[in-house]
């Protein structure tokens, strides 16, 4: 059996807020099938999946996690002396008069 756990289970709060959505029938069917396949109540499944996604999106705004091996390479590259980027130099020259500090 596929394994999926409720990502909200550790949050020690009473379920006091009600959320209701209208859903396209085929989407609703797919959600119901997936919830059944992991033996989970449909509403718990929906909230858990949405919560996981919410956390991931919020996290992605503030951090990027990369593979350890690539991280070492990445660290080396950004610690080298800066290179003049022709395109950036030109963009700066071209846009100089467009924005004035107020």
């Amino acid at each position, binding site marked *: 059996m596929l394994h999926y756990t409720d990502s909200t289970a550790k949050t020690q709060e009473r379920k006091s807020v009600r959320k209701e959505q209208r859903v396209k029938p085929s989407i609703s069917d797919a959600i119901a099938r997936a919830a059944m396949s992991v033996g989970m109540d449909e509403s718990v499944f929906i909230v858990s999946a949405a919560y996981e996604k919410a956390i991931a999106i919020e996290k*992605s*705004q*503030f*951090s*990027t*996690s*990369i*593979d*350890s091996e*690539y*991280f070492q390479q*990445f*660290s080396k*590259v*950004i*610690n*080298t*002396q*800066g*290179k*003049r*980027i022709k*395109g*950036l*130099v030109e*963009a*700066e020259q*071209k*846009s100089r*008069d*467009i*924005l*004035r*500090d*107020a």
Partner: protein
Amino acid sequence: MIFCVMPKTQEKVKPPSLFIMKFNKALHVRSAFSCGFKPIDNFLKSSISEQIKNNLVTAWVAVEDSSSKSPVKGFYALNAHSISQAELPNLTKKITKENIPAIYLNALAVDKSYQGRGVGTALMVHAIKKSVEFSEQIGCAVIVLDVLVDGDDEVFTRRVDFYQTLGFKNIKSSDYPHRMHLSIADAKVSI
């Protein structure tokens, strides 16, 4: 919201002249702003004030008039970010925990009335300059952004080309396939 919008037309028209300033909820009118991509419009209209209030982002806006109420013609938002290495499941291997401080270009967009006139590029350059300034005060090594994916492959390719021209490179991460970075060191010597 972590996207940047690019104009769909080439920059041919005479460049405009706008003022750039820190976003001020009381002064900068957002109701008419439309960049052609609704999630970004919504972000400016509904979320940005809250994110600023919570000290999560800072935002700059381009306006025609700096002294009175003026509609937003373009904007960008930045927030603090970090690049970290994914934890390995092998517990016997010691991993030095490191984070690379970064600045995240959260959103950048131009109102339709100003698209194709170089305002997007100017905002981008301004955002990079601001990031360099911040890096001198708090220490920061890279600027990070996500390339907008809106279903138009041709425009997506143009966006990637544009960022590459400015020196951005892809971050190799399966979690963020469209995330790019520019080193502050490169930005410093270029602008």
